């Protein structure tokens, strides 16, 4: 139960001496591709000591265990699900640092357009880059701009009790650092535009760093410049490789978990669709009061058609009574929507007793009438994914034909002796009945 101990310790450590710094990292190439990421650094002597005792391996296990246990809850999946084409998550994890703990979330993108569309949707920072005309020495200046304008963000953060606690512990101010890297290093001077409350610096590798209050996440404007010769195709490729490292072992495991999660969701969707695509039709021909001929048809459409038809035929083959008493036909069909399907049709060779349907049928005499009640009881369990599909799907129909005239029914009348009930998913999630009233004599 490492996760409990460590995370509990994290919270306690925060309350004592810890502080949080948010780092935003932007790395752009001249074709507009690049990476965007943020790190949350939790710095605390107590935490560092505690985590150092545990080691990175333990942190990895803790994080992965948490991911495994929570991935189905959806909160983690928000980070990676439905990523548009051209955007990939390249790192996500908890890492031990000398001072404490670091949480990384990094994306790569193939163009600024792709990134900005995604960033706009997700509340991330949008980016732009201008390229100057070549100077006399052939050098180009790339101006990279980040503008934040999200007035509701700060309000939202301040509503968070953990955030508030942090704010209090840090004297009402939390820091953010913005690291920007461009196609070439930034120049030694005039590498960025000054901005109110922001401290500027330049790192040895030519990265530009903006340091300021966290409120700049909600409203800020940052411009950095990078200068140099245009990149050759080889240089561009090399920079791209450098920019997107191989996944860390921890992140590789997370990707595995997410792959399993996606497969699970795909499976759930496929199962729901297969239920909708397995249309049934049951013809009950009442040849006498307690005798009937049955024609049971299942028509399978879509990607599950053959697999479920195979199940049907397997069942018919494995249980001798099912096979011997019926004429069975398998054929290709085309559904009303044009999709191909497989129809498995079974027709009784001889009349069978009404009460072979056991609890699914009730019969009573009501003066001059026989009242049949065909029950469709809870074929779909609460929580069945089919029940969340809108519009509510039709899953089949029941058709009752009687040699005697039908005088009443809750289904629709096809002729004087035949009625039909269209069966929806909602009906199958309850105790539903098809009531057919015939003349007694």
């Amino acid at each position, binding site marked *: 139960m490492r996760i409990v101990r460590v995370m509990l310790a994290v919270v306690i450590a925060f309350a004592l001496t810890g502080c949080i710094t948010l780092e935003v990292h932007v790395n752009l190439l001249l074709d507009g591709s690049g990476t965007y990421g943020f790190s949350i650094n939790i710095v605390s002597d107590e935490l560092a000591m505690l985590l150092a005792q545990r080691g990175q391996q333990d942190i990895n296990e803790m994080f992965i265990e948490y991911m495994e246990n929570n991935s189905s809850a959806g909160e983690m999946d928000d980070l990676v699900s439905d990523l548009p084409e051209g955007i990939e998550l390249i790192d996500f994890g908890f890492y031990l640092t000398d001072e404490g703990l670091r949480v990384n979330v990094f994306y790569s993108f193939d163009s600024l357009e792709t990134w900005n569309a995604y960033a706009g949707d997700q509340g991330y920072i949008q980016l732009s880059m201008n390229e100057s005309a070549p100077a006399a020495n052939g050098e180009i200046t790339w101006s990279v701009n980040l503008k934040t304008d*999200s007035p509701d963000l700060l309000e939202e953060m301040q509503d968070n009790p953990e955030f508030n606690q942090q704010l209090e512990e840090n004297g009402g101010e939390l820091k953010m650092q913005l690291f920007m890297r461009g196609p070439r290093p930034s120049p030694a001077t005039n590498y960025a535009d000054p901005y109110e409350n922001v401290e500027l610096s330049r790192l040895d590798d030519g990265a530009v760093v903006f340091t300021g209050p966290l409120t700049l996440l909600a409203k800020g404007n940052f411009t950095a410049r990078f200068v140099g010769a245009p990149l050759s195709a080889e240089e561009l490729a090399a920079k791209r490789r450098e920019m997107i490292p191989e996944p860390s072992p921890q992140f590789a495991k997370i990707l595995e978990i997410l792959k399993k999660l996606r497969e699970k969701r795909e499976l759930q969707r496929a*199962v729901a669709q297969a239920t909708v695509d397995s249309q049934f039709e049951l013809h009950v021909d009442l040849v006498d009061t307690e005798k009937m001929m049955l024609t049971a048809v299942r028509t399978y459409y879509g990607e599950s058609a053959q697999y479920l038809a195979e199940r049907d035929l397997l069942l018919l083959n494995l249980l001798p009574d099912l096979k011997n008493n019926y004429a069975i036909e398998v054929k290709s069909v085309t559904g009303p929507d044009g999709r191909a399907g497989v129809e498995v049709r079974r027709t009784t060779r001889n009349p069978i007793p009404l009460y072979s349907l056991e609890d699914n049928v009730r019969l009573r005499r009501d003066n001059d009438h026989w009242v049949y009640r065909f029950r469709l009881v809870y074929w779909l369990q609460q929580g069945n994914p089919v029940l969340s599909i809108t519009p509510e799907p039709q899953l089949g129909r029941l058709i009752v034909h009687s040699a005697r005239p039908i005088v009443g029914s809750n289904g629709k009348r096809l002729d004087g002796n035949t009625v039909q009930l269209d069966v929806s998913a909602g009906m199958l999630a309850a105790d539903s009945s098809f009531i057919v009233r015939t003349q007694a004599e």
Partner: protein
Amino acid sequence: MKKSVQIVFALLALFMLSGCYEVYVDIQFNDAGQAYVSHYIVVPKKAFELQLNKMGLEQKQALEIMQNIAHRDAVMIGDMHATSRESFFGGDRVVLVREFLFDNHRALSDYLSLLGLRATIKERRTFFCRKLKGYDVTVEADALDMDKLLHFNELFSAPEESDEELPSFLGEDSKQFTLKVFLPGELNAVEPQAQVDWVFRKWSVKGNDLAKPFRAFISNTFPRRDEITGVKKSTDPLPTLDAPTATLTDQGRFADLMNGRFYPVLHARVHGNGKIDLNYLPVYTDETTSLNSFLRLSDWMLMPETISNYQEWLEALEVDEEITLGFGTRNRKPFAAKDVAHLLQVAADGRSATFYPPKLYNDATKVAGDPERVSMVVLVTFADGRTAQASVHAKDLAGGAPIVLKP
């Protein structure tokens, strides 16, 4: 940034205590005298983790202990089988699951007694032919003891040196016990009034009411059932699936997804007199259970033999070293060996059997998905109690060679 900041804060604020803990005992009876029981403990996730911390247990260890308790109970009680069904973890709650199959009512009563519940299950039979008419089921207790209902003292108890009786984070008002019972057929009486929850009747007790006497009574009458009689000898082979597949597209992905997650087990039990019982038992997972349940229940109407000539049947099956539950059907009357000879033949010495895979395809390349996928498993229990099992692959359904099963 917005969403990510929220996620990170959510990560860092995992362990707030809230909510209550609940014990559910769901019992489903069938007319074969079997019972299927799910015993759930639902705990707030944060509370569960704190309790693990307090007891010095890892999560995996705790789940193993719980499963060990289940298997220990099964051995002790007999005629009781524990499955390997996994517990699950939601956003804020942990659902600890133990799942059992009881071969008879004695075993079920013994298990319920471990939970502090007295169960009386009476079978009502017709006077002359002693045919089973229904059950009268009473579950009662002088007071509900949550300690016993949890039946997981290794986790839900305080260390020995402590004076605490139960986890300190749980107050009296936060405990709840729910009993759910399903009896097939017509219900005659339900006392006291119970809520309807899907096919179940449900009684819930919480807080101070747990100390009061508990009694639930439910009684049913099995519905009238007429056997379907017809052609006794096996008819022509069934049509194959080759023709339709020519017009279908994209059949592989679904088959790949279902591979290992939804397939039938045919369990043939050979009697001493040579007759054979056939149990058809679909194996499914949490993800495929909704499809299995829909097909199984609709089969009762579309293929009425599955309830008139067969009966609902449960078996604990060991597949891929996991014990899973097969929820299916079993013939009411055993078959003469000659009536199933097209499917299974037992050697004269009773020491081996040969299974003939049904021919569903003319061409093995036409099967959906991987021809090597397991399309079914055949399991034979010989008259001397020994068993043998074999997987039947999709390609075998295209006129594959007979499969010899030897214990």
